[in-house]
């Protein structure tokens, strides 16, 4: 079920009413309702793949129980390995089987031993990269004794499948989300209203910004061979805002929806395009994934301790794995590696934590240094997005060589019609609002709170009207494919 669909607009109020009016006196019943609603939400796409979530939940629940009883280190490791193998096994099979099969075949062919690649017609189950990581975090945290394993199977199953964040995150940590299923949730008016406001902003980001930019980005990337440099640069710009609006919009809707049910999810985006360097960008972009990799991969590998070689190695590993997590294609791997290259100088010069605080704190505009840092970071990100969006490496390279040509200084020639102008104007307005709200959890969190109600309502109505009438054609959320 898509957040930006009528189906969800019907589903959400029904679950909300049942949750607060029918089951609110019994915590178990409330969790059961959330579990059923979550399975229904997921099953709306394809019931068959529900079995994967159920199986993964069973395995991790019993691994957790086993870890609680087991003191023997070897056996504990074996239990953890079971969880890792099951979760990464699912992920590996559904997401990476064809990639490895095809690449092995190509490698053998290059070595003069042609073999037949037996690629399968595998459908990628929606959200598999997200829920497997979430449930894996539980097993690892229990193994490391960072948290007590749960004995409440219902709460655990509801935690793994919690519908607002099931298919595209934020990838919640068991330490944050699971305990919220143990406690009775109280309805808090301001929290619910805030949730609705965040949902509205998420829908705006998705439908107005991402979907409008998507139409332009698709047009330019698909026809890139015949376009000049300025069009291609504009295409990368559109894609940068498409993916940001799409994914952060989804996260906003997920967080807002959770708040309606009394839950607090972690922040997933913190205005990443206002970052002053790449290290800051990665602290602000897809925070739940970045911190997941930091805690469960980077730090166990040694993090930034050790010699230069260790730092370089660990940085490359984390960025390349992060790239590969996004998809079974060399373009994602190169995208990850490129970000590692951007990041390394900052790490090696120990300047990766120089921009920790808010940008332009207490000022309306950034200073020249901040502005230069923001612009440079954004442009570097833009170039990396070309790899993320391109069909293959050849496409990405020809796209980039198209940008870095003399035609970069020509007028865009991709057919700059009304739709493109509209997308640009909307994106500029969006960036302006985001800038004004950059110190908040989301851009419009506090916008208009002190205004009189009719004026505030008028603002919300305007946003709804813009969503309805200036939104792009409905597209699936990009991160569903990951």
């Amino acid at each position, binding site marked *: 079920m898509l957040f930006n*669909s*009528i189906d969800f607009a019907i589903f959400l109020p029904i679950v909300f009413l049942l949750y*607060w*009016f029918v089951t609110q006196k019994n915590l178990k019943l409330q969790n059961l309702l959330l579990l059923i609603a979550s399975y229904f939400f997921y099953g709306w796409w394809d019931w068959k793949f529900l079995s994967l979530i159920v199986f993964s939940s069973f395995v991790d629940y019993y691994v957790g129980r086993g870890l609680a009883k087991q003191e023997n280190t070897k056996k504990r490791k074996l239990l953890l390995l079971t969880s890792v193998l099951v979760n990464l096994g699912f992920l590996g099979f559904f997401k990476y089987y064809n990639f490895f099969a095809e690449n092995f075949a190509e490698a053998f062919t290059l070595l003069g031993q042609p073999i037949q690649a037996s690629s399968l017609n595998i459908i990628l189950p929606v959200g598999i990269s997200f829920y497997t990581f979430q449930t894996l975090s539980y097993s690892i945290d229990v193994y490391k004794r960072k948290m007590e394993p749960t004995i409440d199977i219902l709460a655990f199953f509801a935690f793994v499948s919690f519908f607002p964040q099931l298919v595209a995150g934020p990838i919640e940590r068991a330490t944050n989300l699971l305990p919220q299923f143990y406690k009775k949730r109280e*309805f808090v*008016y301001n929290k*619910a*209203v805030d949730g*609705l406001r965040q949902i509205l902003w998420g829908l705006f980001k998705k439908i107005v910004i991402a979907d409008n930019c998507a139409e332009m980005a698709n047009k330019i990337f698909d026809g890139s061979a015949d376009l000049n440099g300025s069009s291609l640069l504009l295409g990368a710009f559109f894609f940068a805002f498409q993916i940001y609006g799409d994914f952060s919009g989804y996260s906003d809707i997920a967080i807002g929806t959770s708040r309606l049910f009394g839950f607090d999810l972690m922040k997933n985006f913190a205005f990443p395009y206002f970052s002053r360097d790449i290290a800051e960008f990665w602290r602000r972009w897809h925070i739940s994934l970045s911190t997941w990799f930091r805690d469960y991969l980077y730090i166990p590998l040694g993090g930034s301790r050790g010699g230069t070689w260790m730092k370089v190695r660990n940085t490359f590993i984390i960025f390349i794995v992060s790239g590969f997590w996004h998809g079974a294609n060399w373009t994602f791997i190169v995208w990850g590696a490129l970000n590692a290259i951007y990041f390394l100088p900052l790490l090696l010069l120990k300047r990766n934590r120089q921009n920790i605080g808010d940008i332009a704190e207490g000022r309306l505009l950034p200073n020249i240094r901040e502005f230069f840092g923001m612009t440079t970071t954004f442009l570097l990100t833009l170039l990396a997005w070309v790899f993320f969006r391109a069909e293959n490496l050849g496409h990405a390279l020809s796209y980039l060589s198209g940008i870095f040509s003399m035609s970069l200084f020509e007028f865009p020639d991709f057919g700059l019609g009304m739709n493109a102008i509209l997308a640009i104007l909307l994106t500029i307005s969006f960036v302006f609002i985001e800038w004004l709200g950059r110190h908040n959890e989301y851009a419009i969190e506090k916008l208009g709170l002190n205004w009189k109600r009719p004026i505030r*309502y008028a603002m*919300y*109505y305007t946003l*709804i009207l813009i969503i*309805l*009438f*200036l*939104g792009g*054609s*409905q597209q699936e959320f990009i991160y569903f494919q990951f």
Partner: protein
Amino acid sequence: MSIANFIKRSLKFLGLFLAFAILSLVLIGSTFEFLPHTKYYGQDYEKAFNKKDLGLLAIGNSKLLASLDNTTLQKELGLEPVNLGSIFSNLSVTRLTFESYLNNCEVMPKMVLMEVSWFTFNPVRTQFNEIGGDLFLNDYKLWPEALNYYPEIIDPLRKSFMRQVYSKVMPIGDIDYSSEFKDMSRFEKTYDFKLSEFEEVFPDHIAGVDPELLAEFERIVNLCKENNIQLVLYTAPEVSEYRSLQTDIEDIKTIFRNIPDVPYLDYSEGGEFFKKDYELWMKDSHHLNENVRYSEILAKDIKAKLDL
């Protein structure tokens, strides 16, 4: 504040918005007019829904738009025609166009001329396009059917609504589908057939028969029967390269050939009325660039088939 308060305020907020939305729809609907559009002939729709006593309705998609000339048809068949095709339109839109006309007309048309082809029942090549939104804004009698076309109806409806609003505050250009015709002073092949583009839409070279689109087609046939309207089907010319890739063409044509009392005139390769020369009349693999001479031929063939 309590949850009851939250719900009360949310309902009030939504209620106000819904009231505003309904009012806007009524307002736009009551002042609706078909506007010029590059995807269809707005003036033909405007004429169809105002004149109400037309003799010939032409319905279909871009192949129909490209192949007919109203003046020639009127001269040859003696019926006042309108070209109600629109590019990419699927059979749902075609059927709604026809049904909406019947809802509003005062005299039933004598003939419906419908272009059908290999991809008529394909749900990718044909879609619920923008004219579908126009039809709903123009004719409130169609609204009970709106949910049948959810969610694909949302986008056309939104675009149509926006165009109506724009047209009230600023002039809309008068460019229509005729701008698609290329200038061809000599009849010669001026296009390149790109297999890759073809395979993007038809990767297996199969157009198939979508059951829902087939049902819409049957509704058109039945509407004609019920209202005693002569339905004529035809397939406009297509180039050989394109035609030779249509793996399941015979299955599709069987559907058109086997409707009792409905003549089917096939101008594509292998068809009864095919001529090699037509290849020089095209602007691409399946759209005619020459519609005057072709309309003359088509009208004469129809007269012969129906013994008019």
